[in-house]
């Protein structure tokens, strides 16, 4: 059964990728990219990786499409034709692909129970998590506690990416006199206020999206979820509000200063948990000392750092969206 699914989905993936590369109209490429990330999410789901599938669906199909469309409205619609010979590029790509394919001959088969990772690494995590950390979702335990340094690095990478994008956008263009895209009353900043039905339905949906984002944030220890997914879902909800009610109201609801505080504050919260661990006598990012019962301390630590991750991701995605969509107001 899984072979049929895998063959279907991987073939669709290749066809979509070829379609993206060959499309000249950039809008078509954006739409096909959205389909691509949906197929990837279905792939991850069939391989039983629920956390990754949720992240791919929330970020790839939601926020990334919106940000690409925002970028597309600031640039041209068609790809520029470049007249260069591609012989050297084709040779390099084919040589690299052959080397990589040759390197995969040494890998164990997918899901092989005799592979070293299934003999030594995975059983230790699966058996020890119950006694050491006590939460059912081993993926969150690995991400939040065993490999907390890596996740700290990831949060700082998100922070750095957000700062980089905001720097790029803060360069002021010369004011053009009669360009409608620059005026405060351009339709992009008014939003979809003239369309009644999407507005009503969006208003009904918005509390549920926020509630679902909070559910995914705090339920990450028991099911698929965690900080990254929750941040993306919360950002999607607020982007819905910004699309329906216009940029001014969205920026009045959560001003850009608050967003900058969120982006930096989440990373700060994460580091603070680590430093508190140091001050209480343990190592950096050692959660066992956070409470008298070490297992409970681990759970407190994981909840706090996931909160930090969620706040940073939500703030970063919203800042980038506002930087694109409200170019003249930011």
């Amino acid at each position, binding site marked *: *059964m899984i072979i*049929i*699914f895998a063959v*279907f989905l991987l073939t*669709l993936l290749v*066809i*979509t990728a070829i*379609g993206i590369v060959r499309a000249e*109209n950039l*809008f*078509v490429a954006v*739409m*096909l990219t*959205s*389909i691509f990330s*949906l197929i990837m*999410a*279905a792939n991850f*789901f*069939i391989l*039983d990786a*629920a956390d990754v*599938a*949720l992240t791919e*669906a*929330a970020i790839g*199909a*939601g926020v990334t*499409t*919106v940000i690409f*469309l*925002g970028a*597309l*409205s600031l640039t041209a619609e068609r790809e520029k034709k470049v007249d260069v010979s591609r012989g050297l590029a084709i040779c390099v790509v084919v040589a690299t692909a052959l080397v990589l394919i040759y390197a995969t001959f040494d890998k164990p088969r997918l899901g092989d129970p005799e592979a070293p990772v299934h003999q030594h690494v995975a059983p230790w995590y699966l058996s020890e998590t119950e006694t050491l950390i006590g939460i059912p979702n081993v993926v969150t335990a690995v991400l939040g506690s065993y490999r907390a340094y890596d996740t700290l690095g990831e949060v700082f990478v998100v922070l750095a990416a957000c700062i980089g994008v905001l720097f790029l956008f803060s360069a002021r263009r010369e004011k053009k006199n009669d360009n*409608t*895209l620059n005026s405060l009353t*351009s*339709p*992009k900043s008014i*939003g*979809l206020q003239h*369309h009644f039905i*999407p507005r009503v*339905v*969006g208003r009904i*949906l918005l509390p*549920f*999206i926020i509630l*679902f984002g909070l559910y*995914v944030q705090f339920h990450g220890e028991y*099911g*698929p*979820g965690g900080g990254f*997914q929750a941040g993306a*879902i919360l950002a*999607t*909800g607020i*982007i*819905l509000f910004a*699309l329906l009610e216009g940029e001014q109201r969205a920026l009045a609801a959560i001003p850009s200063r608050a967003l900058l505080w969120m982006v930096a504050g989440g990373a700060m919260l994460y580091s603070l948990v680590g430093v508190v661990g140091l001050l209480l006598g343990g190592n950096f990012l050692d959660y066992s000392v956070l409470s008298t019962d070490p297992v409970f301390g681990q759970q407190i630590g994981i909840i706090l750092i996931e909160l930090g991750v969620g706040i940073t991701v939500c703030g970063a995605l919203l800042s980038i969206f506002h930087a694109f969509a409200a170019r003249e107001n930011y």
Partner: protein
Amino acid sequence: MSMYAIVSIAILVTMIMALIRALYGPSLYDRVLAVNMFGTKTVLLLSVVAFLYGRPDFLDLALAYALINFVGILAVLGFFQSQSSDQPEEPEK
């Protein structure tokens, strides 16, 4: 068990047809239609396969995606609106 397999194959075949429409559709709106259809089919596929595998706690994914698909389509609508106010011409391939 087998009825889930039949339904999931039907949904996969429809996803292939939606993808063909997205690749061939002469106007931009055909492609957006195909993406919307693909999204709804993905939610259905995730729900049915979650039952096929006997893992009902994977339904969170389908719920998340049902909510996010809508936001993507509304963003496309906003994009068309801003484009058509700048250049009043019919977008084509």
